[in-house]
C-alpha cells in the first residue's frame, strides 16, 4: 500500500484532526491514537446517555471516523504516561494533534522538545485559531469555525437567519488540509531529510477556501451574502419539489441551467410548455430578472413527478440535475456504490456498521478498510509491547499504576 511502513501518532479528538490521519490509515499507514478515559474524545460522548452499557465505546460517530487505527489509553496526568508518549514520538514519523494550543506544551510535548527525541519529526497542530495570536487559546469546535470563517453568513435565505452548511464545514475542510500538508511534508523529508512543524488554523483554512468572499470585498467593494440556491450568473438554479413518495413529501431535485443552450434543452425535456416559451425567459438576463416566475413554472412541472424520473429525463437531455439526496438515499446511491464509498466493518461493541472512505481512487495503489475503530485503550498492550518493545513485567507495572486509563 501507498503508506506501508509510515507511522503516525495522534492526539486529539473530534473529526478535524482524526479524519486527516484517516487518509494515511486507509492507505496503509500505522496510526496510533492516544486517548484517555480521564477526558474522553467528545465524539465518544455525542449520543451518550448515563447508564448506556456500551459506555464510551458505543459512539457510532467515533467508530466511523476512526477505522483503521490503533488505540492506546494514556492518563496524561500521570508522569509515566508522558514517558510512554515520548517513546511513541521516538517511534513515529508524524505527530498529529488537534487540542487547544496549551495542551501538548503543558506535557512538554511541544515541537522543539520533541525534536531532541526525533530530529526529523513532522508534526502538525490544528486548532480553531492557530498556535499564535491573542485568541490562540480560544477553544472552539466546527460550529465556531464555520461562523468565524464566513460559511454561516453565506448559507441560507436572504430573509432568514444564517444556516450551516450542515456538518460544521471546517471540520471537513481541515482534515483534508491536514492530509495535504502532511503529504507534502513527507515528500520534503524524503528529498531533504528535514522534518517540520505545521500550524493549521481551521479558521484560516476556511477563509482561504472562501477567497472569493474576501476578494469580492477587498477587490470589488462587494459584500457577499446568502442568496438561497440561486446563482448571480444563471437561472433557473435551485431545488424544486417533486412528488411525495409514500408518506415522504420532502423530495426535491436540484436543477442548474448554465446557458441559453441548457434552457432550450430543459424546455425540450419538459415538452416545451407554453409558459417556458415566453420570450422573457429566452436569455439569461431575462431569466434572472423574472426568476420568481421562472421558478414557479418549473416547480409546477416538477411537483407531480418523481424526483429520480426528473433527474434521469433532464440528464438525458444534457441538463444538470440531481436528486437532493437524503441520508437513506446516500446509502442506496448507485454511483457511490460503484465507487465503494461505503464499506462495512465489524466493531467489537457496535457490531457491523458502515463507514466512508475518501473520494480518491488510485489506479495502482487502492485504499482499504482493514479494521474497526479501537475501543478506548484497546491496543495499549499491543502498542507498548510489540511496537515499543516493553517487557511483560514493565507493561504490567505501568498498568497497575493506572498509566493506561
Amino acid at each position, binding site marked *: 500500500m501507498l503508506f506501508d511502513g509510515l507511522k503516525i501518532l495522534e492526539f486529539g479528538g473530534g473529526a478535524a484532526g482524526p479524519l486527516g490521519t484517516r487518509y494515511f490509515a486507509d*492507505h496503509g499507514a500505522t496510526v496510533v491514537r492516544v486517548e484517555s478515559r480521564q477526558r*474522553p474524545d467528545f465524539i465518544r460522548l455525542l*449520543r451518550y446517555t448515563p447508564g448506556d452499557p456500551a459506555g464510551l465505546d458505543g459512539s457510532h*460517530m467515533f467508530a*466511523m471516523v476512526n477505522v483503521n487505527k490503533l488505540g492506546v489509553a494514556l492518563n496524561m496526568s500521570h508522569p509515566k504516561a508522558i514517558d510512554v508518549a515520548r517513546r511513541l514520538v521516538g517511534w513515529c514519523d508524524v505527530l498529529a494533534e488537534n487540542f487547544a494550543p496549551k495542551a501538548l506544551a503543558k506535557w512538554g510535548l511541544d515541537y522543539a522538545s520533541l525534536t531532541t527525541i526525533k530530529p526529523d519529526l513532522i508534526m502538525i497542530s490544528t486548532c480553531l485559531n492557530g498556535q*499564535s*495570536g*491573542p485568541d490562540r487559546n*480560544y477553544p*472552539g469546535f466546527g460550529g465556531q469555525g464555520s461562523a468565524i*470563517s464566513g460559511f454561516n*453568513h*453565506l448559507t441560507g*435565505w436572504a430573509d432568514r*437567519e444564517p*444556516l450551516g*452548511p*450542515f*456538518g460544521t464545514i471546517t*471540520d*471537513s475542510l481541515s482534515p*483534508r488540509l491536514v492530509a*495535504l*500538508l502532511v*503529504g*507534502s511534508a513527507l*515528500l520534503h523529508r524524503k*528529498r531533504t531529510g*528535514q522534518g517540520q*512543524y505545521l*500550524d*493549521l488554523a481551521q479558521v*484560516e483554512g476556511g*477563509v*482561504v*477556501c472562501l*477567497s*472569493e468572499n*474576501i476578494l469580492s*470585498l*477587498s477587490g*470589488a467593494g462587494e*459584500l457577499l451574502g446568502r*442568496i*438561497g440556491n440561486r*446563482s448571480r450568473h444563471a437561472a433557473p438554479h435551485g431545488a424544486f419539489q417533486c412528488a411525495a413518495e409514500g408518506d415522504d413529501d420532502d423530495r426535491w431535485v436540484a436543477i442548474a441551467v448554465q446557458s441559453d443552450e441548457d434552457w432550450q434543452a430543459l424546455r425540450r425535456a419538459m415538452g416545451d410548455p407554453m409558459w417556458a416559451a415566453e420570450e422573457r425567459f429566452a436569455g439569461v438576463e431575462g431569466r434572472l430578472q423574472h426568476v420568481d416566475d421562472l421558478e414557479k413554472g418549473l416547480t409546477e412541472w416538477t411537483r407531480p413527478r418523481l424526483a429520480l424520473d426528473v433527474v434521469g429525463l433532464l440528464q438525458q437531455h444534457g441538463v444538470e440535475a*440531481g436528486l*437532493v*439526496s437524503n*441520508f437513506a438515499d*446516500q446509502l442506496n446511491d448507485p*454511483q457511490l456504490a*460503484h*465507487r465503494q464509498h461505503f464499506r462495512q466493518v465489524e466493531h467489537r461493541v457496535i457490531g457491523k*456498521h458502515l463507514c*466512508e472512505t*475518501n473520494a*480518491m481512487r*488510485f489506479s*495502482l495503489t487502492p485504499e482499504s478498510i482493514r479494521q474497526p475503530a479501537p475501543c478506548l485503550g484497546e491496543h495499549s498492550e499491543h502498542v507498548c509491547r510489540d511496537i515499543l518493545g516493553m517487557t511483560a513485567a514493565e507493561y504490567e507495572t505501568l498498568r497497575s499504576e493506572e498509566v493506561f486509563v
Partner: protein
Amino acid sequence: MLGNLSGYRILDLTDESGFLAGKLLADLGAEVIKIEPPQGDPLRRRGPFVGGKSDPERSIVWLALNTGKRGVTLDLTRARGREVFCSLSRRADAILETAGPKDPRGLTALGVGYQKLRAENRGLVLCNLSPFGQSGPYSGYRGSDLISVAMGGNMYPTGNPDRAPVRCSLPVSYYHGGIEAAIGVVFALWGREISGEGQVVDVSRQEVMGMPNMTTPTQFPFTGFKGGRVGGGFRGNKAFFRELWPCKDGYVSFALRGGPARIPGILKLIEYMDENGAAPACLKERDWQKYNHNVISQPEVDEIEAALAQFFQSKTMDELFATACERNLMLAPANTARQILSSRQLAAREFFVALDDPGRGITLTYPGAFAKSSLGGIAVRSPAPRLGEHNAVVYGELGLDVDELSAAGAI
C-alpha cells in the same frame, strides 16, 4: 522561498471546479502552469470585477483562486497545440484536469489520454476531478456545485423546515474537491518516489461531499434519521437546539452542547448574563455539571433558550465575541467578509497579504497562506497570471518560438 513541493511541475487544465487544487499546490511551492485556451478561461468573464467594469484581467473569482500559478495559452483543439502539450507533459510531474469521461475538452477525448502521455513519461501523475468520477452509472451526468452538494447528501439537511433544502452561496464542493485533488497529486507523487511509477487518481465531487455530513448517512441504519432540516440548529436525542442566534447587529453561533469540554463555557456565559441581570432561575438553579443534551426535554430547552435569545439580542456581535474570547464562552460571530478582514487574531498572525500586481496596476488584499510551516515555504507567491503572461518563458524553456506558435494558431 522554497516550499515542500519546490521542484515539482504541475500542468493545470482545470475549470472553476478545480482552481483551488493548483492554488494550494502553488502555495506549497510547486511550479503550477495554468493552461488556458487562447481566448482565455470563461471565468475571466464572470463578475464582479476589480474597478466594476468587465475586464478579463480583473475578474474576482479568477484572481482569488489562481494565485501563485504561471499562465500560458494553448489551443488543444489543434494538432500543433497538442504536440506542444505533449512536450510540456514530458517535463511535468503531474497534470490536473476537471473533465468527466464524456467531456469533449478532456485529454482522452482530445487524443492525448494518459496512456499516450505516460509512454513518454513513466512517472507522470494524472489527477482528474470530475462531477461523479470517471466510471459508473452517473459518470456521464453533468453537474456543477449545486448538483454535487445535492447528490452528496449535504443539501437535504441544510435549511429551514418550511423551505427548500439549500446550499452555501459559494461553491463548497469545489473547495472540498480542490483540496482532495491536491491530496491526490501529493499522494501519487509519494507513490512515485517509492516505485518510480506515476498513476491516475480519479476524484469525484459527489463523493467529496460525503465527509462534510460527518458520518450521519452511515448512522442512518442505527438512527433512522434521514437529515430533515432544522434551521440554524441541531438535534439532540430528545430535543432541538438553536445554534445561530440574532444579536443586535447580526448573528452569533452558540450551542447548548454538553460534555466536559463545553460545560465550562456554558457556566461562564451564565455568569456573564447574571452580571447583566439577565440570568433567570432556570439558568442559575440548574446543576450544569450533570447537563447532557441527550437527556434534557424540549420544554426545558425552550425555557433556557428564551433567556439566551433575549440576552444575545441586547448585545452586538463584537461585544459578545470580545467577551467570548476573554472568558472562553465557545460563542462565535457569523462573520461577513468585512468582519473577517478586520479580525484582530488574523491581523496578529499576519494572515492577510497585500499582493502587488504591477502587470495590472493594482494592489489587493488576499487571504494568505492556508497554514504555517516552521520552514517557512507556504505562501501566496504571486497574483493570478494574466492571459498568456508566461508564454515566452514557459515555451522558451522547451526551446519553442512563441512567434512561430502564435502564427500556427497553437497559442
